């Protein structure tokens, strides 16, 4: 969470001051302290044969990119960003899932390198099965590389994956760079090994300069499926949030909803070699899964179901890019919730904004069955779950809540929105976005869900 460059007594911003701006970087390279000189521009490093492993369970790349937020109302000269290539508005840092790219044995380095400047918001959703030394003794291999920042070639920030909430992890795999390691740009990579022993809903983010990297978009949701899954005796679907022993956390469909915020000035500053005073922070936009309402209701980007085993495997084009869906090309994850009457829907909610959220369900209630990847039970087993219509949770917290769909005979919509109203609605001119819908269909309308957040609106390849 520290600033690597600061720790060398030499901040990158100070360097910019001395060098008179990013354009002077090469000329001033004699000022770069010794430990940093070895970091080469990424294109040079990747020109050689692929340095990347091909056996990762998941492989992420950290880089920068552009996304689209509502252009009206404009925010000073910060939003929309005049440097943004159409149809985009806002500069981000982020991750991309390059697992498929890494397994192209003849072309992986080229395909991976082309994802520079193609970050997505939110960071890719992923999920694992609970580790068990007997029944699932799998060392989950998650690789990370750092493609550098195309808009900010002066930045040589490292990246990490910090799995927020992972219990009793050694520093090597915690991703917090002051007590551990970071992955610098230049074709370097690192392998995180995860043995997730505790089911539930978590989040992950880059922890390098985390105020900036988290806010700029290197934030995603991760969850762990319990080993009770597959037991049809406790709940017919055999799907559970936790190893509850009684089916109380059983569900039919699951939807991951990651709340984040965008302060337009900070994003503009990073695109234009400026630095905000973070204590001026304000949330101009509230986002769910990287989108603002009504974009939250748009379908997921097209994906392949059979290979979406630990993350949504979006279709990619010949350059390895995300499918061109227009302004939401780099915001591929939908927040639309669909279900059939009578079904249980698990909402996996995470807040990685910097403010409290109060997500409210209009016309219905949910049961909170877990918080912070912990079932709602005391040490002696006392049930502490509860029903509510407003889920209040702060920065870095997660909630597992089950919505039981009523027995409707026609499509019925329930609105889920942040009761911080100006963060809920862009259509009315506010800085909104944290609003989505739960649509309940008559029994049997929707086929069984195969991938988290899957809805009938999606274009999928089997």
């Amino acid at each position, binding site marked *: *969470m*520290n*600033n690597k460059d*600061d*720790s060398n*007594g030499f*901040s990158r*911003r*100070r360097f910019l*001051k001395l060098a008179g701006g990013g354009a002077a970087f090469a000329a001033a390279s004699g000022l770069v*302290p*010794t*430990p940093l000189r070895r970091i080469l521009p990424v294109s040079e490093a990747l020109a050689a044969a692929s340095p990347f492993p091909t056996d990762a369970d998941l492989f992420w790349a950290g880089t920068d990119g552009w996304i689209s937020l509502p252009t009206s109302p404009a925010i000073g000269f910060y939003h929309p960003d005049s440097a943004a290539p159409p149809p985009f508005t806002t500069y981000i840092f982020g991750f991309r899932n390059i697992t498929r790219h890494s397994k192209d044995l003849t072309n992986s380095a080229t395909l991976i390198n082309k994802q520079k400047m193609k970050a997505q918001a939110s960071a890719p959703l992923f999920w694992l099965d609970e580790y068990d030394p007997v029944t699932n003794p799998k060392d989950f291999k998650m690789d990370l590389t750092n493609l550098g920042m195309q808009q900010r070639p002066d930045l040589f920030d490292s990246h990490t994956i*910090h799995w*927020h*909430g992972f*219990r*009793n*992890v*050694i*520093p*090597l795999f*915690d991703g917090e*760079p*002051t*007590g*551990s*390691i*970071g992955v*610098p740009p230049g074709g*370097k990579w*690192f*392998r995180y*090994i995860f*043995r997730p*022993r505790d089911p539930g809903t978590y989040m992950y983010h880059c922890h390098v*300069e*985390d*105020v*900036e990297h988290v*806010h700029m978009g290197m934030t995603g949701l991760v969850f762990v499926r319990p080993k009770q899954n597959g037991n049809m005796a406790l709940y017919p679907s055999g799907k559970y949030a936790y190893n509850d022993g009684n089916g109380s956390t059983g569900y039919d469909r699951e939807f991951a909803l990651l709340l984040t915020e965008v302060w337009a000035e900070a994003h503009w500053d990073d695109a234009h070699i*400026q630095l905000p*005073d*973070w*204590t*001026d922070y304000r949330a101009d936009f509230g986002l769910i899964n990287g989108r603002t309402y009504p974009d939250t209701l748009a379908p997921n980007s097209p994906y392949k179901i059979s290979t979406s085993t630990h993350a949504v495997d979006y279709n990619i084009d010949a350059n390895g890019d995300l499918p061109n869906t227009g302004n939401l090309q780099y915001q591929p994850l939908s927040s639309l919730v669909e279900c059939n009457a009578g079904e249980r829907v698990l909402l996996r909610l995470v807040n990685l904004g*910097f*403010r409290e959220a109060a997500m409210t369900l209009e016309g219905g209630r949910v049961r909170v069955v877990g*918080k*912070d990847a*912990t079932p709602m039970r*005391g*040490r002696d087993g*006392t049930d*502490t779950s509860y029903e509510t219509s407003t889920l209040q*949770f*702060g*920065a*870095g*917290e997660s909630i597992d809540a089950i919505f039981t769909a009523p027995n409707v005979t026609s499509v019925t919509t329930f609105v889920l929105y942040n009761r911080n109203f100006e963060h809920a609605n862009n259509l009315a001119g506010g800085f909104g976005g944290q609003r989505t819908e739960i649509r309940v269909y008559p029994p049997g309308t929707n086929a069984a869900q195969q991938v988290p957040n899957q809805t009938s609106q999606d274009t999928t390849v089997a």
Partner: protein
Amino acid sequence: MNTQENFQRKTSAWPTLAAAIGLLCGASQAWAALPKVGVACTSGGPNPTFNLDTAIGNIPMPDGNSIFMWSYALTGQPFQTPGPVLCVNEGDTVTIVLHNKLAEPASIMFPGQENVTVGGQPVQPEITGTTITSLTNSAVPNGTVSYTFTASKPGTYIYESGTNPEKQVRMGLHGALIVRPTLGADYLFDRSDSRFTTTANSGTATPWNEEFMVLLSEIDPYQHQAEESGVYSFYDITQYRPRYWQLNGRGFPDAIADNAASWLPNQPYGALARVHPVDASHPYPGAIRYLNVGSLDYPFHPHGNNGLVIGRDGRPLAGPGGQDLSFEKFVVNVGPGQTWDVIFKWYDAENYSASNPVPMALPDPANLSYLDFYSGSPYLGQQGTLPPGITTVNQCGEFFIISHNHSLFQLNSWGLTMSGPATYMRVDPPLAAQGLNGILTCTY
């Protein structure tokens, strides 16, 4: 703020860091008796009387700024922020005499204590005309007021000013009160499941208490400057905006310096949580007493070790029949005016060691980046090779695992990043393993 100011703030912090990572240097004379880490009690024997002054001083900010503060201080002792950690035992009759050295009335409230009296009468708000001028009995300038209560319920409590609290609490008139249970000083409550690690129960030879305090606060520098400059009436409280957030009255990295660090003469309380892994000879958890004297929820995130919240606001989380209502959290979201009592256990879930190595090939060290606290080795008690030019403060292969406020914009000091409420859990190798089989020996 323009970037020039920012640059100055960034660079000005480094002398502070250099001092803090020196750790364990001399102690300020006034606080010489405090333990190096952990809760540093001011105790007064059975049925104690504490004499507190309101005091005035300045403290340094991580960005080099100097902030004018008020505090409670023990009579005869210097200004300190936060106020002294007052530790009493369940059942004690506690008397606290406030000697007001400010130019305006001041007072102390004891939220969570019942039957607080002044002069034998229950404390009452002070009303002038139709306006409440103090939420409790106050002392006039150069006057005194004596509060008495029976500490009937064990737990963690705040004490703070009840007079113009929107000014005085924020100026620094706040502190922690700990009531230890009858069951024993190594319990948080009168419940057997609230025991935490101390010298007596962990087989350690060194004085060793894994009981820590995280007191969260905030500073709007304009409010403090207005008071310092004698123009407080011009301060517009509707423009209140904190620019500094603190942990035990310190920013980062001051927060990881020892209690009573000599270079922080008026900020005696560190927040480093130094622990040994939980194992058979060290079976009990560590304890953290969280207090929030600020205005917003502070979502505090301890990495790699969830907090089990077993009490709030001086009461155990228990049902009417003693049912356990505790809950485990990876973010301890302490609300304004709340206290949360949390226990935690650190152990390596995978028992990685040189003989049970991590199941991946470690990259060439030159292909990674490093910061100040890494040992160079994945394994507790071991150090590895770091590339030339990389420095580390790592002493004996210990782990430094961070804890910080996750409302991340608050990790800043008016533009200086990574200087707000953050600290480390420092995990030392098990004492019995040190010096054996390649495990390094730590100094204490």
